[in-house]
């Protein structure tokens, strides 16, 4: 078994345990916060008898551990229960809303890496020059305001005053794209509709950029800081004494080793976007899981809350596993230490 496979299995095992812990926690919290979910679902005009019937159906009168047992049994069958808010299976809701959020977060994460890392590299390579100064100002701006503030600013600037991008939504109503994967960028391409693809992309750019900005700033700052430190290492001087070109030194000698400490934090930032997406989705009327999550929490929609939190936690854990694998790939120390255990 290869060392990376071993690492993946180990991390999957740990993640499963974490997920069980999260499910217990959120299951309990959702049930002990005040308010009767059955009453909220049925509205003020429902009779106490009706409420009682629903409570019985939801097992709300049973002791908590038993309720959790019912939940686990359903979960094993892939059933997260019915949402009291949409009256549909929670799994169906998630399947509908999750792709929109993932599309947003994935593009934002890609922006963070493709913009943030190069900015950091430039900044470190030309440190104390005007390039460095500019990058540092940009990154400070990026990290100093939360995503939803950027969402509002970007929307005002580039959708309202300068209408380059659409204000809200995922795609213009005029396009009818059959949903296959739920990812519009994929579905439009699958349908061979380039115009629709461009339209979906233009809807995606602003919210993704707003979500990415603080990550871009963070990635640039971190990369710069770690690279500047690495530039002081003896192996950089040795590389220079061998006359390696500065570009190669920047990439292979300064950037590669300093990516190892940066990557963990970049991974955490990436995962944190799932949470930050809540408010960005609200600003851009983005029909994603985060908006769904806020709606169901406000309505104390028990099944939907637990389902949403579980899915987001699972995403978080998957991102972490991917980051761990990447780190193991670029850091020979970790890769080799896995082999011996």
């Amino acid at each position, binding site marked *: 078994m290869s060392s990376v496979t071993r690492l993946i299995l180990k991390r999957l095992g740990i993640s499963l345990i974490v997920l069980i812990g999260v499910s217990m926690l959120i299951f309990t919290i959702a049930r002990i916060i005040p308010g009767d979910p059955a009453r909220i679902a049925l509205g003020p005009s429902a009779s106490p008898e009706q409420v009682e019937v629903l409570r019985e159906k939801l097992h709300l009168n049973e002791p908590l551990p038993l309720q959790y047992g019912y939940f686990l049994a359903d979960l094993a069958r892939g059933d997260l229960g019915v949402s009291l808010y949409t009256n549909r299976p929670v799994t169906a809701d998630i399947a509908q809303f999750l792709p929109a959020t993932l599309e947003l977060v994935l593009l934002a994460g890609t922006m963070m890496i493709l913009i943030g890392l190069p900015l950091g590299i430039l900044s470190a390579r030309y440190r104390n020059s005007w390039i460095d100064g500019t990058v540092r100002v940009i990154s400070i701006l990026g990290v100093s305001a939360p995503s939803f503030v950027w969402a509002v600013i970007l929307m005002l600037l580039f959708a309202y005053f300068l209408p380059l991008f659409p204000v809200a939504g995922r795609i213009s109503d005029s396009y009818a794209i059959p949903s296959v994967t739920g990812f519009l960028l994929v579905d439009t391409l699958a349908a061979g509709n380039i115009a629709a693809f461009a339209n979906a992309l233009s809807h995606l750019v602003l919210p993704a950029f707003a979500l990415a900005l603080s990550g871009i700033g963070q990635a640039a700052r971190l990369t710069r800081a770690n690279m500047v430190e690495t530039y002081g290492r003896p*192996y950089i001087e040795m590389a220079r*004494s061998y*006359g390696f070109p500065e570009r190669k030194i920047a990439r292979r000698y300064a950037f*590669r080793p300093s990516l190892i400490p940066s990557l963990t934090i970049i991974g955490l930032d990436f995962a944190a976007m799932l949470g930050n997406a809540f408010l960005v989705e609200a600003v851009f009327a983005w029909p994603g899981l985060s908006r769904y999550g806020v709606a169901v929490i406000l309505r104390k929609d028990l099944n939907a809350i637990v389902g949403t939190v579980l899915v987001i936690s699972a995403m978080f854990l998957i991102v972490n596993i991917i980051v761990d694998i990447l780190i193991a790939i*670029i*850091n*020979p120390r970790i890769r*080799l230490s896995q082999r011996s255990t």
Partner: protein
Amino acid sequence: MSEPTLLIRDLHLSFRTYTGIIDVLHGISLHIAKGERVALVGESGSGKSVTARLIIGLLQMARGTRVDGLLQFEGRDLEKLSQSERHALRGTRMSMIFQDPTSSLNPVYTVGAQFHEVLRRSAPGIGKTQAMERATALLDEVLIPDPARVLASYPFQLSGGMNQRVMIAMALANEPSLLIADEPGTALDVTVQAQTLKLMRDVVTRHGTSVLFISHNLGVVREFADRVYVIYKGRLVEQARTDDLFDNPQHPYTQALMRAIPRITGGGIPDIEEASERFHEPLIVHESCGEPGGAR
């Protein structure tokens, strides 16, 4: 007499800093003949490393440095070369060995990959197989037992002594005419240091490589160098053939250094008696030392 590999005349160096100008080298003149092993010895802060970095051409790039004097390599005035001509010499005609072998190698690439990069300096198109063959031969030469395993290893998997040998092999990979060793192996165990120095001497002798060997410890120098320059606060104070210097040190500072040689060679920085006015006495050149054109 044939062209010396390295000729330095009246080399001055100063740094411009926020607090003013610091003069570091006050006119250093030295030469290294073809195949000669020359030591530059002095306490820490005396200007040995900056001299090395001026020769290799790294210090000139830093901001705020002012360099004056003649640096001539194989008959060519280095300061008159273009940036790219100068660059082309590094790692090919001249190379350098550093103090701490393990931290001087890139931690995220294998020794083999790093050899490949070094070999590319003189043979840009060299393929992996060829590079590994050449690297194996080089590692054989520095008596590394299992070259294939070492080439596949990362520096952190090897001992300091092993990395030191790797560095020596790398430095000689492109057959440079000048090797600069800045306090090589000071970070290593004393016996390991002695072993690798002996090994290095054998290899450079075989290749006919000229060496500038930098150390703060006169004791280490004795086994290695043909000639010694003693440097004190940016000035050379004495130069002699190694035997002559040890038999008959004349400058007060050299005598102080001599007394400071630790019983067992190597180890930390020797304790030098308190700086004395007499250390500033003028340069003493032993007879038949052969500084062409006379030294300051």
